[in-house]
């Protein structure tokens, strides 16, 4: 068998079809679109069935905690009468330590049901541990493929910790240097082993996250007696936000959904030299923006993570602000959690200051912390890599050069990304070279893809 890069990539569609047990072609429409809802329904699981499956793995029903002291701190920074109540969904309480357990569980369950002997997943994040954890419970073998090292062999401490955890849970970990060709290694492993592709982006994975949104609505109503006003989701590949928002909708919840990412603008995600200049390996704009405007740039033909369909607003926060709020969570609430998951908390801290005191904002995740994956080692690693860390105004932070810890919590700000600009980019991507062949069905697809009206879609197309 020819295992050169080009030869493996040429076999991509066949390998993926065999490794997901799903024929994505059947959802394609004539023209540029596909039937997203039909693809989601093709999992064959209702939300109640997914909850039942997740309960078999002891996943879900995580605590919803009111952060009273952090709310008090936000109120001290806010104008008179402002400062919404901040709640956090303690997803670190899931087996494997993050919401990703929900996402992994459905894939692993499906793999077991279809008779696969193991699962392969490509991730440097918490998802690897989640797949390893569920595979351990299901008695399946597991391979996790990570982008971990730069060309000098220096690993990101956060990613090394995740390798350790995957190994602790029985997985084989394959570690690579920087580069998107990781995908060809995954394809080769899928072909070699015949295992299931527990991709982050299949309908199984995203359907698994819907229970998180559903639970937030149920728990919040039971605890506070109404719907939350805002739910903030850390956004990287888009699955967290997509699944949560779909779950909220299924529960009939009226909350606005706001995406939050760490601002890493200026850093190239495939750059070897910049790999260890980042202090966040996920939850950042380097994934969040490209995956929103081009969701199908993933390891399945059509990604089930389509965040532009669901986000009402998209804000960024600085690395220093997220580290700061992570320490606040420990010092004021007694909750020591991993920094990346607190991206949405940093955003919520500022967003709460624009809302009235009787309004409520939910941060929909926490993640586990440990050696390497914690504010202290991550700042220590940054300092060793020549990043200038000091107190000041976070707006002066330059990703890859400085981390500015807010001199006062009132300096934590959010920056809005231009959602209409991203919607136009999404339309441009989807239309490609088919501008003159678009049908009414294509226009409807683009309206759904961008959560916008016909006039917006038609004007964006006219401007291409």
């Amino acid at each position, binding site marked *: 068998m020819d295992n050169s890069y080009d030869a493996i990539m040429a076999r991509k569609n066949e390998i993926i079809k065999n490794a997901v047990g799903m024929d994505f072609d059947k959802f394609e429409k004539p023209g540029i679109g596909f039937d997203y809802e039909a693809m989601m329904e093709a999992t064959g699981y209702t939300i109640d069935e997914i909850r039942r499956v997740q309960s078999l793995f002891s996943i879900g029903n995580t605590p919803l905690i009111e952060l009273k002291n952090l709310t008090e701190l936000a109120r001290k920074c806010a104008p008179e009468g402002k400062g919404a109540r901040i709640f956090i969904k303690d997803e670190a309480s899931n087996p494997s330590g993050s919401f990703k357990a929900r996402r992994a569980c459905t894939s692993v369950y499906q793999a077991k049901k279809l008779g696969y002997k193991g699962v392969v997943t490509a991730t440097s994040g918490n998802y690897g541990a989640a797949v390893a954890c569920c595979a351990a419970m299901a008695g399946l073998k597991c391979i996790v493929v990570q982008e971990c090292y730069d060309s000098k062999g220096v690993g990101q401490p956060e990613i090394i910790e995740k390798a350790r955890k995957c190994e602790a849970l029985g997985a084989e970990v394959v570690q690579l240097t920087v580069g998107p*060709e990781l995908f060809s290694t995954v394809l080769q492993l899928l072909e070699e082993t015949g295992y299931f592709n527990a991709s982050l982006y299949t309908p199984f994975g995203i359907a698994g996250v819907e229970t998180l949104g559903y639970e937030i609505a149920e728990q919040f109503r039971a605890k506070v007696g109404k719907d939350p006003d805002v739910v903030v989701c850390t956004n990287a590949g888009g699955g967290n936000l997509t699944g949560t928002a779909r779950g909220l909708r299924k529960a009939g919840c009226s909350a606005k959904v706001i995406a939050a990412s760490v601002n890493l603008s200026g850093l190239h995600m495939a750059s070897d030299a910049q790999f260890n200049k980042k202090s966040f390996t996920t939850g950042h704009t380097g994934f969040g923006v490209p995956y929103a405007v081009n969701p199908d740039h993933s390891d399945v033909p059509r990604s089930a993570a389509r965040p532009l369909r669901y986000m009402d607003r998209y804000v960024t926060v600085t690395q220093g602000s997220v580290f700061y709020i992570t320490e606040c969570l420990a010092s004021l609430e007694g909750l020591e959690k991993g920094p990346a998951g607190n991206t949405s908390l940093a955003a919520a801290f500022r967003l709460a200051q624009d809302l009235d005191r009787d309004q409520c904002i939910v941060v929909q995740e926490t993640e586990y912390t440990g050696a390497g994956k914690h504010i202290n080692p991550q700042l220590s690693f940054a300092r060793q890599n020549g990043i200038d860390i000091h107190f000041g105004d976070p707006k002066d932070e330059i990703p890859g050069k400085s981390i500015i810890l807010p001199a006062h919590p009132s300096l934590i700000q959010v920056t809005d990304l231009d959602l209409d600009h991203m919607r136009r980019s999404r339309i441009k991507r989807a239309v490609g070279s088919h501008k003159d062949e678009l049908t009414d069905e294509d226009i409807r697809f683009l309206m759904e893809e961008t959560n916008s009206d016909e006039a917006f879609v038609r004007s964006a197309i006219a401007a291409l």
Partner: protein
Amino acid sequence: MAKKGDWVQIHTVVLPPEERSSALPEDTKANPLEMWVKGYLQQDAEIGDEAEVITRTGRRARGEVVKVNPYFEHNFGFFIPEVLEIGNTVRKITFGGEY
């Protein structure tokens, strides 16, 4: 010297620089795509020898032996004084100056 049956880490070059994706930044493209896996060594070998291992999932993989009994060294990093200062600052603001 590593013995047959030892738990080792092996290293391989997946793609030499000239075979890498054309869409990469120059600094990345100048380097090979490298891979590390761990497994049980299938024959005695010196560090630097090419050898075969059987991995945790039972796969056979070949590569240069780079470590015997590999272990994790990541930790909680050096002391970062700013972290303490953040805690002190926000506790004072939240709970008052007496805190």
